[in-house]
């Protein structure tokens, strides 16, 4: 529904009443800065001097109560609500494509409790993750959630798209790190999930909202786990002659123990990013492993690592490259160190069991390079489990079309081709970046009739369809 100037002002005064005038904006600066996230298309669009879809109102509630008030207003007037945390997402999930309200969570950044008995931090979901890491560090603990966006993204942002950090193999993904959450439902009701996860009191409500990308409600508070600082963290770099040996070695290793960092780079990425930033000037597939925890266990695990990898012909490169990688793990993502405009690029992270993941890698590489000869394909495998791994495969087009509409068309065609190939070979639409508007069209292809579970939940919780429309394929 389009509102005229009078109604726009009427609704504005209601929103101001809900969150305070200073926390409700219709200024151009607030609209434009909430229109572009880390999604390549939004960046390209603005780079070409075009304005992205923008919100009509930007509101910043301070807690669940104010969030509830905003959602009640939005429901009454049937205005779309897009939740914005840090804006660091790559899938366009936070872009207000249908206008309406952008609900920025960053004022909900309070740290309520650093609970060292039960080992969690209770905080508002608008807290920057780095800030809760500081809070943990001050008490001698760590969050062990270290993604490249640690300093820019919020707790809620990571929960909303099921994020992951570099020490995930040992400590888990964001959904392994949350105990309890407070959520505001689209109708404004404020709910809490069960006081502990892993229960048998029905399905885990946490897992309904984690990964829901703001389509089912707004997470406003969460208890995030903290961990002991490791007595020791050791690194070991290896060079595999081929990817197959690396997969076999890693699968076997994970049946024995869990390292914290496991990153396998394909020969193309070893020869580009790893050479540039870590300094490995060798052909092959570089793999970095970190082992951490109690020193006595680290000692044993390192021995097992060396024995296991030696069986598969891995060349031991010592600890220096691994240490360098750790020091530079976020530098990779600073402007000037990674792909940037005018290049076109994308990361099609997918996940699959071991019997499929290598096949998926080769199939996607072949599909991208065959159908889009202007694109380069590089990949690494950065999150590993006893049963499988995820591939962080990227395409890069150095000279994309100048025309933004043509650039958008090519970008989407490459994505569709790559992700369809992953699905066809047993992969999943995405591992940890989410779906957003970028991949919504592929959700039905992924799930088929199972999609009705999502649409059913959506219809029940958000009958007016106000929450983050056109995202997640809902």
């Amino acid at each position, binding site marked *: 529904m389009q509102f005229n100037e009078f109604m726009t002002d009427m609704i504005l005064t209601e929103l101001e009443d809900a969150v305070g005038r200073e926390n409700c904006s219709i200024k151009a600066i*607030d609209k434009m*800065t909430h229109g572009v996230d880390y999604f390549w298309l939004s*960046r390209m669009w603005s780079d070409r001097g075009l304005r992205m879809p923008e919100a009509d109102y*930007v509101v910043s509630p301070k807690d669940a109560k104010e969030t509830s008030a905003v959602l009640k207003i939005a429901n009454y007037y049937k205005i779309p609500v897009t939740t914005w945390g840090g804006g660091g997402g790559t899938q366009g999930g936070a872009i207000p494509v249908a206008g309406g309200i952008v609900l920025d969570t960053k004022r909900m950044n309070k740290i309520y409790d650093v609970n060292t008995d039960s080992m969690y931090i209770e905080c508002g979901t608008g807290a920057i993750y780095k800030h809760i890491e500081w809070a943990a560090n001050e008490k001698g603990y760590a969050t062990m959630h270290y993604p490249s966006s640690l*300093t820019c993204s919020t707790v809620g942002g990571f929960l909303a798209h099921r994020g992951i950090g570099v020490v995930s193999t040992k400590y888990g993904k964001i959904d392994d790190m949350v105990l309890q959450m407070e959520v505001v439902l689209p109708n404004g009701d404020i709910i809490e999930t069960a006081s502990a996860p892993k229960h048998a009191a029905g399905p885990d409500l946490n897992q309904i909202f984690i990964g829901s990308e703001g389509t089912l409600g707004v997470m406003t508070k969460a208890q995030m786990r903290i961990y002991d600082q490791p007595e020791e963290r050791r690194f070991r770099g290896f060079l595999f002659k081929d990817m197959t040996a690396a997969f076999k070695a890693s699968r076997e290793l994970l049946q024995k123990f869990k390292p914290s960092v496991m990153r396998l780079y394909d020969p193309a990425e070893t020869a580009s990013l790893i050479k540039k930033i870590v300094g490995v000037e060798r052909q092959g597939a570089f793999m970095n492993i970190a082992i951490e925890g109690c020193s006595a266990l680290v000692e044993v695990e390192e021995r097992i690592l060396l024995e296991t990898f030696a069986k598969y012909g891995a060349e031991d490169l010592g600890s220096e490259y691994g240490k360098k990688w750790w020091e530079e793990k976020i530098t990779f993502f600073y*402007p000037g160190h990674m792909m940037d405009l005018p290049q076109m690029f994308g990361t099609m992270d997918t996940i699959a069991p071991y019997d499929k993941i290598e096949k998926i890698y080769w199939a996607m590489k072949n599909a991208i390079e065959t159908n889009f000869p202007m694109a380069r394909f590089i990949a690494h495998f950065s999150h590993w489990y006893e049963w499988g791994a995820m591939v962080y495969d990227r395409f890069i087009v150095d000279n994309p079309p100048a025309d933004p509409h043509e650039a958008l068309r090519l970008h989407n065609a490459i994505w569709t081709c790559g992700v369809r190939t992953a699905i066809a070979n047993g992969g999943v639409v995405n591992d940890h970046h989410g779906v957003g508007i970028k991949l919504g069209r592929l959700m039905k292809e992924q799930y088929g009739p199972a999609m009705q579970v999502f649409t059913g939940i959506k219809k029940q919780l958000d009958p007016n369809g106000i929450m983050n429309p056109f995202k997640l394929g809902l």
Partner: protein
Amino acid sequence: MLISENSKKIIDSCRFCWMCRHICPIGNATGQERNNARARALSLQYVERGAAELSECIDNVYECALCGACTKECATGWDPIVFTKEVRREAALDGITPDYISALIEKYGETGNIYGKTDYCDCIKNEMADLDANADTLLYIGSDARYMAPCFAKNAIIALKKAGVKFTVLADEIDSGIELDTLIGAMEETKEAMTACADVLNKYKTVIVLNPSDMKVFVREYKEWDIELKCELKTYTSVLADAYRNGKIQIAKLDGKVTYQDNPFLVREVGETEEGRVICNAAGEYVEMILSKKDTMLAGSFIMAQWMDDVMKLVAKERMANIIQSGAKTVVCASPEDYAFLKDAAPEGISVIDISELVI
């Protein structure tokens, strides 16, 4: 918008990068998306590309304290302060400086300072009375302490006397140029103010600079403008630390843990991290708070408070949370701004003191 190629390059590098978000004192205090280097760069790239008017973004260009936290954090070395100051200058040249900034410039034109003050506190004058006007060392107080935190200036004069330093203070001291540099960047008027101040300072062999923000202008901006300072510049904290090391002053002992507020300009622009700690360590059990030394957080700015007073209070409150979390009962400040804003933000049980108060 006529800005340098260097600024354009920085804008295009910062516009999609949020890596410094966590360290911006303004963004942390307000929770507003527009308050970080990325948002500022994004809006200005729209202006550059003709998709937005500078007038739509100019207020946000003034929502930056120029504290350098983002610059320090950038692994690539981009400096968002460069384009922020250049756009402030551009706005002045285009006549679109916000009214609240123009009003301050007007006051500066009338009184020589943006606070519109023509006289300063008797407490400073009283302490100046017995100083030797012919001394070859000058204590440069700066407009902030002189007009906004006179006790801070008074205490410094008293402490230097106790240290046996032969110095003078100017009754008609002029601004270092920090005020215009902050408001309109590298305009000709700014250079004139700096040159006039340099002419005065150059009459002395040594100048002790009380306020780190003035020191930052002397060591950074004067150099960029090629304005020569022949005098030897010393920070006030370094003079105090030397006096303590040489046994010329004693330091009061405090009960409870003590911490130190690193001034952003002192640590990041002047490169001084240890001198204040020499004094604090002598005062009692020292604890380091989070975000110290070059990672420090701004605690307040008198200049910025002229148009964002509420935000400055939030900034101080955020910093006070770090102090409380450290377990310290006393925080020692080496800048009049840190002192004034933290004092206002301090809850019961936390003592905020000016470093001069430790000199006995």
